Every structure is written in C-alpha cells, then in structure tokens.
C-alpha cells in the first residue's frame, strides 16, 4: 500500500492548503494572460471609435468600453460583404471537409485493406505531398487555377484541398486496426469491399473519422494564404480575408473589424465547446504517433 506522504499531521495539510491556493493563483494569472487580448477585443468592438480615441488621448486607460455600443454586431451582420464572406467560408469549408473526408476514406481503405501492385510507391507519392504544402506551390497553383478559369470561383477555393495526406494516414491507421478476421468473415458472407467499407469499416471507425472531420473543418475555416491570392474580387473573399479588409480600414471604423473577428470565431468556439474531446484527440493524433 502506498502511504500518502502528506496525509497525516497538520504541517503537511497546511503546506497542501498553501499549495492549493498557490495553484489557483497561478491558474488565475495565466487565464488572465490568455483572456486579456480577447477582453480588449470585446471592449474595442463595443466602444464607439471616436469617443474611445478621445478618451485614450485624454489619458484614459482604454480598458473599459466607451459608449457601450452592442449594436455593432448587428450592423456587421447587416453588411452584405461580411455576411457574404461568412456564407462563402461556410460553403467552401463544408466542400473541403466533405471532399477530404470522402477521399481519405476510400484511399485509406485501399491502403489498409486492398492488395494491389505498386502499393508502396503510391503510398510514398501520398506521403511526399507533405513536402509540397500550399505555401511552396502557391505561385504555380495560382497559374493553374487561372488556366482552368477557376480564379474567383468555388472550384478554385475548394478543389485543391479535397485531398490531404494527414487524413489518408489517420483513416488508414483506423482501418488497419479492424481485425482481419472481421473483414474475412464479411467477405465470405458475400459482402463486397464496397459494402464492407461503408457498412462495417466506416461505422467502426466513426470516432477517428469524427475527429478528422473536426480538424479538417478547423483548417478549412481558418485558411488564409490560398483564398487571399486565389481570388481578387470582393464577392470571393472568405471571412478570414475579409477580416484583413476590415482591419485595414481607417481607425474610425476599426470597431467593425473587432466585432467581425469575434463573429468569425463563434462557429469554432461552439465546435470547441461541443466537441472538445474529439478535437483534442485529432490534434494530438500526430503527437502520439510521433
């Protein structure tokens, strides 16, 4: 039996109480560090820009809202450009997530459960794409998208991202964990591979596929570099790119940018709260595999 070293005796307990208070103090300080920029963003969003600036110049701390203008969120949502960007981001993100999930499932199944020539070579080709991120291929891909007349279009924004090596990897890993006997039995029962994949393999792997869907959505929603350069018309600006447009307006309108940044994060905050465990599992998948 392991004896609790600090169980008995009042000095131990006192030390532990001090420790607990210290822990809470540290946790509170760290929380304030993380939350402070979010707090100031809310303050700036609901402050009237000119009075806020005047209060700053008059020696105000700037830590409190000036004017309490909650209507700003409604006005941002009423701006056509903003709602259009929000909608476009949602559509593009859903297309990317659906595309990535589908292509990863079928490709993952091929690698995990099918036998075919040049398997290792094809797998190497997939892994090799990790060395060719969009940051490297940007210039050439913009040219390709122009050649295809996909500049300023949903195809241009979504199609290049409908396959992702990480997803293929993750889902292949999940399928490899399915007992071989189960597959053999199903095939003997006359299941086709297709039916086995969608009736057995996918349902069994739902937790991992779910995590992948969330991570994929996070990535697609937050994308910046590609949408910034794969479109130049305002109606094809995704929300992230629209944030820049708002943020580079004159100081008098900056409250719009801050309100927009808050609104743009709400979908992700909701997801994070609803699916915290699954998202964390997805984020740590790489770390655990090493």
């Amino acid at each position, binding site marked *: 039996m*392991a004896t609790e070293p600090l169980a008995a005796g009042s000095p131990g307990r006192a030390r532990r109480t001090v420790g607990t208070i210290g822990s809470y103090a540290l946790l509170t300080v760290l929380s304030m560090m993380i939350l402070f920029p979010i707090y100031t963003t809310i303050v700036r969003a609901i402050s009237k820009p000119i009075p806020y600036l005047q209060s700053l110049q008059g020696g105000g701390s700037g830590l409190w809202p000036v004017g309490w203008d909650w209507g700003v969120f409604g006005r941002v949502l009423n701006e056509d450009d903003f709602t259009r960007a929000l909608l476009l981001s949602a559509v593009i993100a859903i297309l990317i997530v659906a595309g990535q999930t589908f292509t990863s499932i079928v490709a993952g199944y091929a690698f995990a459960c099918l036998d075919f020539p040049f398997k290792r070579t094809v797998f190497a080709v997939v892994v090799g794409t990790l060395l060719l991120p969009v940051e490297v291929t940007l*210039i050439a891909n913009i040219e390709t998208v122009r050649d295809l007349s996909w500049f300023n279009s949903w195809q241009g924004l979504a199609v290049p991202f409908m396959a992702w090596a990480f997803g293929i990897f993750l889902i292949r890993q999940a399928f490899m964990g399915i007992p071989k006997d189960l597959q053999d039995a199903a095939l003997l029962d006359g299941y086709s591979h297709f039916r086995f994949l969608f009736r057995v393999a996918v349902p069994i792997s739902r937790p991992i596929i779910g995590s992948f869907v969330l991570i994929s959505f996070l990535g697609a929603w*937050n994308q910046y570099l590609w949408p910034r350069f794969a479109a130049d018309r305002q109606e094809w600006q995704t929300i992230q790119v629209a944030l820049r447009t708002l943020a580079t307006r004159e*100081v008098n309108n900056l409250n719009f940018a801050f309100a*927009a940044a808050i609104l743009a994060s709400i979908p992700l905050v909701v997801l994070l709260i609803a699916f915290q465990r699954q998202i964390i599992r997805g984020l740590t998948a790489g*770390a655990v595999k*090493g």
Partner: protein
Amino acid sequence: MSARTERVTKRSGRGTESVLAAAFLAPVVIIFAVFAYYPLGRLVYLSLYRRNANQFLGGADEWIGFSNIVDTLTGEAFRSGLWVSVKFTLLTVPLGLLLGVLLASAADRKLKGIRIFQTIFSSTVASSVAVASVVFLTLLQPETGLWRDVEWLSLNRPNSALLAVSLSAVWQNAGLTFVIVLAALQAIPEEIREATMLDGYGAMRRFWRVTVPLISPALLFLAIVLVVNALQAYAQFDILSPTDQAQPLLYKIADPEGISTLSSRAALSLGLFALTLVVSFTQFTLLEKRVHYGD
C-alpha cells in the same frame, strides 16, 4: 479458415482488387498530381523562363536559364526574407514551447474547477491566425492600441514589429501547445508519479529528470509543428505589419504589392521548398534517433 479465405480472395481475384484500388485512389492521385506535383515542375519551368508579355500574340516564353535561380537565391530578397523567417522562428518556437509547458503543468492538477481553466487555456485553438492578428491590433495598433507607447513592440520599426507579430503568434499557438503538452502529461502513468513523489525528489528535479524526458516525444512533435508554422507564416505579417517592415520569406513569394517578376517569385518558392526539405529531413533524423519513448 485462413486457407479458405485465401482461396476466396484468390478467386475473387487480385485483379478486381486492383481495379477497386485504382478507383479508390484515383481522386487523391488526381488532386495530388494537379495541385502538388505538377506545380513543382511548373515552378521549375517558371523560374527558367521569362513569360513573354505578348503571349496571346503567339510569342514564346524566353529562356533565362539557371542564372535566375542562382541570382534569386543569392539575392537580397531571399536573404532578408529568410533572415526574418529564421528570427521569427527563433522568437516563436522556444517561447511557444515554454508557454505550453507552463500552462499544461499548471492545469495538470486535480483541483475543483480545473476544467474551466483547461477550457480557457485551450481557447485560442478556436482562433485563426487572421483572428489572432486582428485581436492583437487592439494592443498593437500604432494610434489606438493599448501598447502604442511600448517602443519595443512598435509596428512601425522592423525589429520591434517582428517582436510584436511574434507575440501574437505565441498567443495564437498557446491553445495548441497547451492541449498537446497536457495530453502528454496526463499520459504519464500514475505509478511513475507516485514513485518519484516517494523518492523525495524536489519539484524542480522531478520536473527536469522525470517529466521532461517522458513528454519529450510530444515536445519534439510540437517543436516541429511550430517551426513549420513559423517558416510558413503569412497572415500575421499581412494583417499586422505595415508593408515595408518585417517581411518573411513567404511575403516575398506571395508579393502582394506585385513588385517582383513571376520568375523570381518561382525561384523563391523553390528556395522555400528546399527549406521544407531540410526541416523535414531534420525531423526525420530526430525521430529516428528517438527521444525517450518511455517504453
């Protein structure tokens, strides 16, 4: 059983399996061919030829040769961009790791309400780089930011601008680093924790001698993710930093002001590709050597 299945799979045929595999792999192979491998070839082409301005009138692209690649990669734009990217990496990665470890060790306790703190610490996972940059404008904006008078964070001068942008990146990464380090800490077996407690190790010694080695795979993974993120950073600079201040490598490639030629931007992209190869190779060797894996 296995003999029977062997026969079944044999009869139903390797052939049909190959056809099915081809169909299943076609989507990813096509997308990767068009948007990952073909562009690599195209970058080489673009950097070797100068686009003819009158292409539509039938003029061919003009061969400018390898000298363009050499000139670009030894030139001012590549060197200064690379230098900014390296400095940005050195500023954000160690600080990011440290913050992640600090947040995670603080939150890895059995206390009432610890869940709330854990949620707060992971909250920046929900913010994109663009959102984080706009959020930091409330602090850094030269006229109205709360820290407008803090000179070493001024967005109007190159070095302080780089520091300011780094700060926003560290904050934005905090959620991810926290989540991963916390998962690693919680994976440490209870017996090991108890054993070290009983051994009478001091908190510091326990941390450096036991905890850090045990979570080193997660730290290495994080370090790699953060390095790659830093070398590919763009949005922070695009949103926070006025154009002529800190410009990382990717800024020179994307070239939002359109001052460089397509050929030199393509050559710069090849430079970034080389850098990606170096980082990946280093990562691979490190993972092979393997930090303590806690068997």
